[in-house]
């Protein structure tokens, strides 16, 4: 090998902006042959944007990319693939009704002459060889839909290396994996390393960064804030770089007097979770932690009336509530700040004022018509109170930054008078400054007598902000910790039961 230890990939001064945000600001990285380069950063730091540019899903605004020393303009995903770049996304793109072998060779099935019919035998054989190289035991004929998430991931890796991958990018690959599965993934990564594949490993879990990476790049708010050899750094340094400030300042926590029980959930069963019981008290922030697929989102959707409840009781302020629809949930003064604000939270092409009043159109005036003056007063009040940065009340929310969009979603529920606010990953995809503001807003709500349920997979966040933490795994609550008891290890352990 001629350029062993040579630079396989160089991304120079990459900048990318979206309406209202600079997602990447002059970021440069270098990737050596056969190394694992970690990219560390909080949600919204720009990790995904960087990868999407490399994969040809986004076009950079400026900067240049070199593959094997050759300057390379990546204009679409197939060009990226042609140069040996493979990305395994967090949400796997498997074709669930096809077999393992078909998934590995999708788009490039092995064929035999004279009519170019699919050569099943050759395909299954080659698939078995590739899986063998990875030291995994999977039947090439198995249907993808029947596999576990970690097995699907292995198939994605097999698919990537079947086409001569030089650079393999893994975006939060362990988000849905148990500890054991994570270890077998690391074995595969090490196998690939010895074969000379370079790997970009994206994560915000420090433990993994130390375990698997050779070097680590730290991003914050779209900027590269550090590059360290993994052996030469420690967790403290990385966290400080990642959040850019003191932990206490990052997660402001005020003690709020916790009052009477406002929500009681008894033996709740629905699609995605079983036998869930817990309660929530006035002034409290209840954290729910769990891996992808643990049933967290299904639980809050059921509480909010968006998913059907099979059995069990929900008691609000001592009265049994029959929450059959989000409308009823809203009338019970429950608000949901959903996981994906763009899909579930906002009417993106309407203005700020339309969105702030979306859950409470009825109160926009007496009778049939909207009182436009009243609407402006209401929306203006929340924009001011929550510090939503927008040029006008008419501005399309699409063009606001993630943090301001999230505030609009929250304002919507405050406008409709919600007293129980459920936030699903509230700080996902927003910058550090906006995160702190969201934490403060949550605590203001508690001080004003509301109660908050916060789902989060960001360990430092949930450990610092929640008064009490429930851990979910496979649709059940596996543990409950008070803020003083909870540690990173305990939460992860309970999440993998």
């Amino acid at each position, binding site marked *: 090998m001629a350029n062993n230890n040579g630079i396989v990939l160089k991304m120079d001064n990459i900048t990318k902006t979206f*309406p209202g945000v600079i997602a990447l600001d002059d970021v440069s990285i270098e990737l050596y042959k056969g190394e694992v380069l970690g990219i560390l950063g909080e949600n919204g730091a720009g990790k995904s944007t960087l990868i999407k540019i490399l994969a040809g899903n986004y076009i950079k605004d400026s900067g240049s990319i070199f593959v094997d020393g050759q300057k390379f303009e990546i204009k679409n995903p197939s060009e990226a693939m042609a140069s040996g770049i493979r990305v395994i996304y967090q949400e796997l793109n498997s074709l669930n009704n096809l077999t393992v072998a078909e998934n590995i060779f999708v788009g490039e099935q092995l064929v035999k002459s004279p009519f170019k019919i699919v050569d099943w035998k050759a395909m299954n054989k080659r698939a078995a060889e590739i899986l063998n190289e990875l030291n995994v035991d999977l039947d090439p004929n198995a249907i993808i839909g029947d596999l576990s998430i970690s097995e699907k991931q292995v198939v994605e890796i097999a698919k990537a290396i079947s086409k001569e991958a030089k650079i393999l990018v893994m975006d939060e690959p362990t988000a849905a994996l148990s500890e054991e599965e994570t270890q077998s993934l690391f074995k595969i990564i090490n196998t690939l390393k010895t074969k000379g594949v370079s790997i970009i490993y994206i994560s915000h879990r420090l433990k993994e960064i130390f375990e698997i990476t050779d070097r680590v790049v730290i991003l914050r708010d779209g900027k590269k804030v550090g590059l360290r050899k993994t052996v030469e750094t420690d967790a403290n340094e990385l966290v400080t770089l990642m959040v850019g400030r003191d932990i206490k300042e990052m997660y402001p926590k005020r003690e709020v007097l916790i009052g009477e029980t406002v929500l009681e959930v008894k033996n709740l069963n629905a699609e995605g979770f079983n036998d869930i019981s817990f309660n929530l008290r006035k002034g409290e922030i209840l954290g729910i932690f769990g891996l992808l697929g643990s049933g967290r989102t299904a639980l809050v959707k059921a509480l*909010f009336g*968006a998913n059907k409840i099979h059995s069990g009781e929900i008691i609000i302020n001592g009265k049994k509530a029959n929450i059959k*629809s*989000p*409308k009823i*949930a*809203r*009338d019970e003064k429950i608000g*949901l700040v*959903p996981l994906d604000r763009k*899909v*579930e*939270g*906002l*009417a*993106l*092409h*309407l*203005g700020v*004022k*339309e969105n702030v009043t*979306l*859950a409470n*159109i*009825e109160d*926009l*005036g007496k009778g*049939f*018509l*909207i009182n436009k003056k009243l609407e*402006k007063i209401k929306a203006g009040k929340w924009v001011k109170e929550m510090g939503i940065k927008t*040029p*006008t*009340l*008419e*501005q*399309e929310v*699409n*063009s606001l930054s993630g943090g301001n969009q999230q505030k609009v979603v929250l304002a*919507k529920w405050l406008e*409709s008078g919600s007293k129980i606010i459920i936030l699903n990953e509230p700080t996902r995809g927003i910058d550090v400054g906006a995160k702190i503001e969201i934490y403060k807003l949550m605590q203001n709500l508690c001080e004003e007598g509301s109660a908050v349920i916060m789902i989060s997979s960001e360990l430092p966040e949930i450990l610092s902000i929640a008064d009490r933490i429930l851990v979910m795994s496979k649709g059940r609550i596996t543990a409950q910790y008070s803020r003083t008891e909870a540690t990173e290890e305990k939460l992860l352990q309970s999440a993998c039961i």
Partner: protein
Amino acid sequence: MPEIKASSMEPGKKAKISNTGILFIVLVVLFALFSYVGRPFFFSVLNLIPMLNNLSFIGIIAAVLTMVMVTGEIDFSIGGNIGLTACLAAFLLSKGLPGWLVVVIALFGGAVMGAFNGFLATVVGVNSMIATIGTMFIWRGIGYTLSNGESMLAINPVIDFIGRGFIFKVIPFPIVIFIIIFALTYVVMNLSKWGRSIYAIGTNPMASYLSGINVKKVKFINFLLCGITASLGGLILTSLSAVGMPQHGQGLELVIISGIVLGGTALGGGKGQILGTLAGTLILSLLYNFLTIMNVYYYYIQIVQGAVLVLVVATYEIRQSRALKRV
């Protein structure tokens, strides 16, 4: 502060002329041009009044169908509804029912047809394009059955008045209906809570549902209103032609939807203005009327109408993708 337009806001830029604005300019230019080229007949009462009468029943349906389409649904059964309504009205008249009762029953029939579409689209959850293509055939089939496939005379003072009556002796009654329905739908869409829900649903049905808006109810009622309006259109057409026959309204769904789309309503929902629909419908009618009185061969007229639609919609797409690129 300028009023927000739900459709054509382009963030961070100077307010440009909206698509609807352009359509009205085109409309005025076409009208002037046609009046000149087609003089003296085009700009005469003898031409304009029948044209407006024809426009009226197309226009009222287009206005209400715009509401349906902004929520992201569609109703193809309007033409079938017109055919069935025409036959039903003529049939009931032939049985000696009083005119006012025939009108009430016909409109009620329209409500039933609209409610059935709404039921299929919201409760059952069938894609409304497929569902209403189905019901289009059903309505027309019932019309054929009821009339035995023949034209039936529909003459009665009340029915006559709907299409051929005058208010204050000069304003044709269909024009009055046209103006009232456009004014009402404009108020609903631009000023009312109902209209706000419609735009919210069209922009993001999931977020609207998760904000406590009863998405199915809003869609259902829009279908219901569309059914009633289509049968009102059917009554006007019956009155104008003085016969009820099952072929009434055949192919009209495409003409009406073309006008709406020409006016800037997106098939995917969320976008659309009542004034845009007004302009789009007017432009298509003017064009058709002008080409007809210029004795252009009917086959060519169809080509022109189709080409105009494709051209305008392509222009929208280009304008929109340019606007996106600038962001």
